[in-house]
């Protein structure tokens, strides 16, 4: 079973290396353990995250791609759909049977035909457009809704801090 997962992950790594999507760098932290990846995502332009680079860790289950990986930002990330510990909460990371919010369409959720690349692109668009329906970080969601300026301020500060400025 694990060899299926390993083969799949290696081939995804290869695709991402040969055709890296704009603003995304991703690969295993150490190829000896191909189940742990690190990704860098650029903040989408025209959003408070613009100019930032956000590191995240992806952990794949042994039965990948049947089950989705988990994704956790390893930087300060103030966003309605990211838990304070960095864990990302979007539909593509949820298996079809596991819908805590009962609103996600099956097509948006994880399936073996999704990929790391699609996850990272989804997360990028999530940064641009938070999903207010299922806030993982309730405080950030409320701030995003009610005090947008303050929200943007925190995000901008995190962007600069992340780059060591």
């Amino acid at each position: 079973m694990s060899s299926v997962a390993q083969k799949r992950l290696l081939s995804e790594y290869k695709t991402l290396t040969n055709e890296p999507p704009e603003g995304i760098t991703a690969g295993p932290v150490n190829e000896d353990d191909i189940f742990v990846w690190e990704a860098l995502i650029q903040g989408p332009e025209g959003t408070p995250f613009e100019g930032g680079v956000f590191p995240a860790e992806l952990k794949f289950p042994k039965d990948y791609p049947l089950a989705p990986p988990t994704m956790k930002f390893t930087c300060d990330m103030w966003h309605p759909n990211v838990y304070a510990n960095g864990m990302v909460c979007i539909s593509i990371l949820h298996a079809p049977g596991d819908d805590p919010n009962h609103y996600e369409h099956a097509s948006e959720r994880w399936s073996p035909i999704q990929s790391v690349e699609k996850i990272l692109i989804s997360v990028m668009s999530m940064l641009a457009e938070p999903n207010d329906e299922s806030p993982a970080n309730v405080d950030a969601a409320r701030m995003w809704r009610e005090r947008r300026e303050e929200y943007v301020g925190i995000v901008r500060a995190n962007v600069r801090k992340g780059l060591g400025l």
Partner: protein
Amino acid sequence: MSDVNIPQLVFLAVVGFLVVRWYLKPGSLADPSSSSSSGSRTASSRTGLRGEVPPQTMVRVERVAQMFPQLERRDILWDLQRHGGDVQGTIERVLSLGRLGTPPQSFQPIFPTPANASPAARPNASQPSKSAHPDLITRYNLSSKLSASSPSSGADSPAIAATSERPLSEIPTSSAAKEGWSSNKVERAQLLQRRREEMILAARRKMEEEGKGA
């Protein structure tokens, strides 16, 4: 007819007794002689492994796991079960042997999933913890490359900035971007690292320039 029935009844009674005993006193059957043919089956049914591991057993497993987080819960459970659930004994075996025995393939307990996979169970999840994460420059140890590649002063125009980036030995951005998949694991890792660094350094330079402009 009645002659035939009596031995059958006796046989049934014996079998019934054995079955009841087997269910009620699982520990007593742990000796290898009685479970020679069905060792793994005995083991798995002892914990009710068709279902989840019962909570009181999980408490014991967790106590050992707390001390030795690197141990697999499956191995811990296996050891506990073979020794009558004695936590202390299991701990001592780990300490003295440095490991636990490997359970057979057929031993596949279903562990209850921790309930705190949901947001509500993360108590202090409201505020971002400050300074929990190092910035990317620190994290990837890029401070030296930063000073080498950053146009220290007077390089306001992007053209000059680009030329002064050359000290990175090759033409930046494009070098790693053009390279492709290597059959060598080390080269792949190096390429990935280079791309990461370029992405971070480019973002940092851009941000610095914006700061100057503002």
